[in-house]
């Protein structure tokens, strides 16, 4: 139970420690004074000092045990050298027919055996955000921290402390054929607090597929506080996938911001397979007419895992559509929160917005707190929302069993079918098959955390079988 008041949480040692750490490492953290970023970091730090961590009794945090993750003692790495680290030695992506351009982070720092940042023949820039800030100050300054200005505690913390992350810039009119896959690994002998930041910019009429597998971790307790900003300029298309598969000691605060300009299209899939405490803040800002957003999520939690998904869709301009489906299965003592908020501004006429959250609780101890919420100020709109919490369909169970399928497999088949609605929305076939495979393993209880995650560490010699045989589900 959370009993702390705002003062209590802000007096917790972690906040005080972070303030001290910032002061002691100020020069390292804020960087060269000539860079625009140093001022941003300093401001964010001052703001964090003022607002601290979120009030545990606030609307979106009250059902999440924030104290649990804030009570650990974490180390931070401010001058971590990844030089000489060979990416190939850390992991190897073994998804068949999944040809991607891989960028990776180790403990929040960009790792690449080659250069820190590269410009492709088509003009696309991919690499380290720290490097991009130095080499492309005009680009980064224009976009970094500009998505949505608001006092989000963890985003301020991230802005103050984050040093590196992934930077992608797709020039106007460029379609990046090969998906870019970002992999983040945390591997350290102490408990780490990692703040990293990604900035992804899609130029006008450009196209990008971006896969984030940013949460594969060893078994230490760690807290990852990550912020990703996406800018979808006019007519651009982003196909985005995010996979979360963490150990049960891990905390992950993931804030993802999308800013969409006129006629841009977003399709984002969030797939959560494991994690101690995960909080996802998705904020989608439809800032131009004719935008479309497809926002999908699936979460499969068990033991004492906790998931908190916050989805905020901001319909600022007219003639936009957003479609949101989040589905979850909670087993054992797992708990979850879903807060969906669709805001339709007065001028956002002809908005079409839908919001759905469905949950299956497999035990009496599992719980979900779901609150879909529409806030509509325009009068000519089509909006709908719905939330359900239930058990597996008993009639369907009997139907399957009456054909000879055992109870356990019938349950799994139904759970799989339930999750498949979201999995089937993955457009890249190789990735869809792999995730499909992972979901099946997860439902069978065979998916442990890092050894069976989307990445396959080189030491892992097990071959992955991609044949789907439902008779083995």
């Amino acid at each position, binding site marked *: 139970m959370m009993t702390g008041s705002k003062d209590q949480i802000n007096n917790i040692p972690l906040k005080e420690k972070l303030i001290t750490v910032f002061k002691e490492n100020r020069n390292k953290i804020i960087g060269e004074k000539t860079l625009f970023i140093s001022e941003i970091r300093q401001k964010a730090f001052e703001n964090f000092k003022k607002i601290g961590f979120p009030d545990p009794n606030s609307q979106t945090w009250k059902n999440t045990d924030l104290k649990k993750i804030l009570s650990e003692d974490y180390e931070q790495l401010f001058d971590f050298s990844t030089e000489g680290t060979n990416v190939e030695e850390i992991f190897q992506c073994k998804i068949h027919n999944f040809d991607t351009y891989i960028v990776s982070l180790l403990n929040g720092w960009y790792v690449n055996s080659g250069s820190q940042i590269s410009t492709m023949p088509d003009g696309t820039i991919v690499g380290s955000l720290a490097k991009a800030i130095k080499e492309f100050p005009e680009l980064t300054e224009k976009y970094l921290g500009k998505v949505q200005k608001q006092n989000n505690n963890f985003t301020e913390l991230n802005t103050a402390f984050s040093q590196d992350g992934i930077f992608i810039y797709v020039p106007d009119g460029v379609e990046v054929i090969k998906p870019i896959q970002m992999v983040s690994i945390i591997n350290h002998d102490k408990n780490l607090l990692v703040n990293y930041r990604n900035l992804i910019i899609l130029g006008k009429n450009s196209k990008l597929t971006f896969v984030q597998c940013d949460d594969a971790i060893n078994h230490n307790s760690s807290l990852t506080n990550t912020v990703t900003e996406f800018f979808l300029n006019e007519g651009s298309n982003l196909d985005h996938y995010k996979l979360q598969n963490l150990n049960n000691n891990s905390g992950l605060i993931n804030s993802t911001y999308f800013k969409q300009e006129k006629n841009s299209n977003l399709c984002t899939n969030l797939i959560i397979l494991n994690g101690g405490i995960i909080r996802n803040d998705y904020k989608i800002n439809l800032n131009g007419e004719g935008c479309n957003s497809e926002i999908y999520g699936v979460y499969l939690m068990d033991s004492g895992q906790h998931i908190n998904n916050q989805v905020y869709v901001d319909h600022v301009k007219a003639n936009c559509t957003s479609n949101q489906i989040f589905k979850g299965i909670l087993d054992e003592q797992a708990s979850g929160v879903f807060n969906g908020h669709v805001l339709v501004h007065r001028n956002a006429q002809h908005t079409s917005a839908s919001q759905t959250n469905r949950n299956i609780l497999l035990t009496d101890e599992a719980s979900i707190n779901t609150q879909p919420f529409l806030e509509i100020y325009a009068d000519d709109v089509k909006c709908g929302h719905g939330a359900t919490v239930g058990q597996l369909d008993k009639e369907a169970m009997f139907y399957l069993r009456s054909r000879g*399928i055992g109870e356990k497999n019938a349950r799994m088949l139904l759970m799989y079918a339930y999750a498949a609605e979201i999995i089937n929305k993955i457009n890249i076939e190789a990735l869809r098959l792999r995730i499909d495979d992972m979901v099946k393993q997860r439902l069978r209880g065979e998916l442990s955390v890092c050894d069976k995650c989307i990445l396959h560490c080189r030491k892992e010699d097990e071959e992955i079988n991609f044949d789907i045989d439902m008779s083995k589900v």
Partner: protein
Amino acid sequence: MLLNIRNLHVSIEGKEIIKGLDLSVNNGEVHAIMGPNGTGKSTLAAVVAGKEGYEITEGEILYKGKDITVLSPEERACEGIFLGFQYPVEIPGVSITNFMRTAINEQREYKKLPPLTATEFLAKMDEMKKLVEIQSKLTNRSVNSGFSGGEKKKNEIFQMALLEPTMAILDETDSGLDIDALRIVANGVNKLRNKENATIVITHYQRLLDYIIPDFVHVLFEGRIVKSGGKNLALELEAKGYEWIKQEVERMS
């Protein structure tokens, strides 16, 4: 004797639905169970298939000489019992192909047989598709999801064809079918008929029995079989209605 039901009493939530039912079915026979609505026809089918929520307060159900009431629905299925549902359940996300392959292989595992390979399974599926005149594309779709009434019932017969049960119980398979679908469903049943298996056809109307010729017709009324006869009994019922049976029952009691 394949199925032997003796003095069966069944309650749902304390309310007695079946009140001392006797029924014997031998291999190779087709039995029709008719009767007005709400007399326990579907309850009988569900109880034999093992659906939860039904309490057997008295009597026994022997299948191949063994008490099956202790078996789970899946065990009964593996022993050769099949229930054709009156209202087949929609299961979005599970394709018929995967559903049936899983079911067949679980049944084979129960019988200690090796699983069918994908090729063997597909060949078998093609064969049965022809037999029950089911459209190819239907099997790639999710189970019953968005199917028309006729498609759902055809799908039940298709599943029956694939699973090759010994004792099939078809619960109002004819309800909601147009005459073409009815003929296809009946043809499927007739083609699957052999000396070893048996079928119980539960129906409200005589119409289906023009296509599936039963060896025996039973009238279920107020939880008991009150009259049994040959196929002509069905015609008599069609002509006279159920009122006549009701009066006969009242006279006897």
